[in-house]
């Protein structure tokens, strides 16, 4: 399961905009793009959709990692050892 927060929700809702956010606090949102920043309501409305998106993405990453490890014939600990 992927954690969902405002940073990810904004990135999901506005994939073409640039912004900064402090401590996941929407009142600190700095919008670097020229578009209008999303409202809290807009973000709350897509919250579940964003969570499902990131969950799927996270699962995809886990599957890809498992497939890679399987193809290499090593465990996750062995992979970590190689990188260490």
């Amino acid at each position: 399961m992927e954690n969902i927060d405002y940073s990810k929700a904004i990135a999901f809702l506005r994939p073409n905009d640039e912004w900064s956010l402090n401590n996941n606090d929407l009142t600190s949102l700095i919008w670097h793009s020229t578009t209008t920043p999303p409202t809290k309501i807009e973000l709350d409305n897509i919250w579940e959709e964003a969570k499902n998106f990131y969950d799927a993405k996270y699962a995809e990453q886990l599957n890809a990692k498992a497939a890679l490890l399987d193809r290499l014939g090593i465990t996750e600990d062995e992979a970590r050892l190689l990188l260490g």
Partner: protein
Amino acid sequence: MAKQTFTTGQVLTAAQMTNLQQTAMGGGSPVQKTASYVLVAADAGTVIQMNSASSTTITVNTALFAAGDSVQIQNIGAGVCTVTAGTATVTTAGSLALSQWEGGMLYFTSTSAAIFFDIVQSGSTSPLTTKGDLYTRTSSADARLPVGTNGYTLVADSTQSTGLAWAAPAGGGKVLQVVSTTKTDTFTTTSSSLVDVTGYSVTITPSATSSKILILYDININSNPSTHQGWGVLLRNSTQIKIGDASSTRPQVTIAKEMVNFYNDLSGQSGSFLDSPSTTSALTYKIQVYRYGGSSTDIVAVNRTVQDNTDRPRGASTITVMEIGA
């Protein structure tokens, strides 16, 4: 002895001759005053001696004295005695205000004008006005150097008009002050250009232009190396102070270390820099970050991972600056 009008055949006594001689030598018995006084014609050739603990005046009016007459004025009292032009004019190169034990000669050039020859202050006045003032000199005149800040020392400084200046004691390589900020909350951005990290800056005001500022920093930063990276630049105010040399289109940064990791761990990066700002104005040091590569959906995170799942770490980042005395 007051000015006399002698008559033909007049015989002077020995005492009168002695008194005349003393007067001619600039002496004579003084006429003592204990309060403000207005000169009268009979004062010509005498010594007016003021003796008062309070401030007093000696006023000079017209039509009392002839050209060539003189009146000596002495002040032996604690109160300042001021020679004051009444209806006559009184000019001087010095001061008409006589402190205790000061004096001078009032010499009349006409019935309405006199020159006061200030014999104590020699034609100069003190520029000092305030406790702790120093009596100094510019290239052409005496000058006042106001007392310095507590703890400061007097140093030679040829750029100053008096050649002197007050300055903080030289630190001699010692740490004069330390300021530090630690950011414990998180920050995220998708900006592809440098942005401030909220709460991750420190301001210091050097006490001397010769001081150096030692900056120590560490920052926990995370991105997704498979798509993009989070890089940073150290700044003093708006000036980038620690970046690599320009080389073609290669980004010039302070930090760009990004380990490939499968686990979305924090990548703590630290460093230092010795800055020579040459100012005593307030300085703000900070690291700005930005996203390199990827797209606007890719997040750069400080003090947290991008993934930020509940098993992922949270970190803290510190920036510390030290003023090092020259």
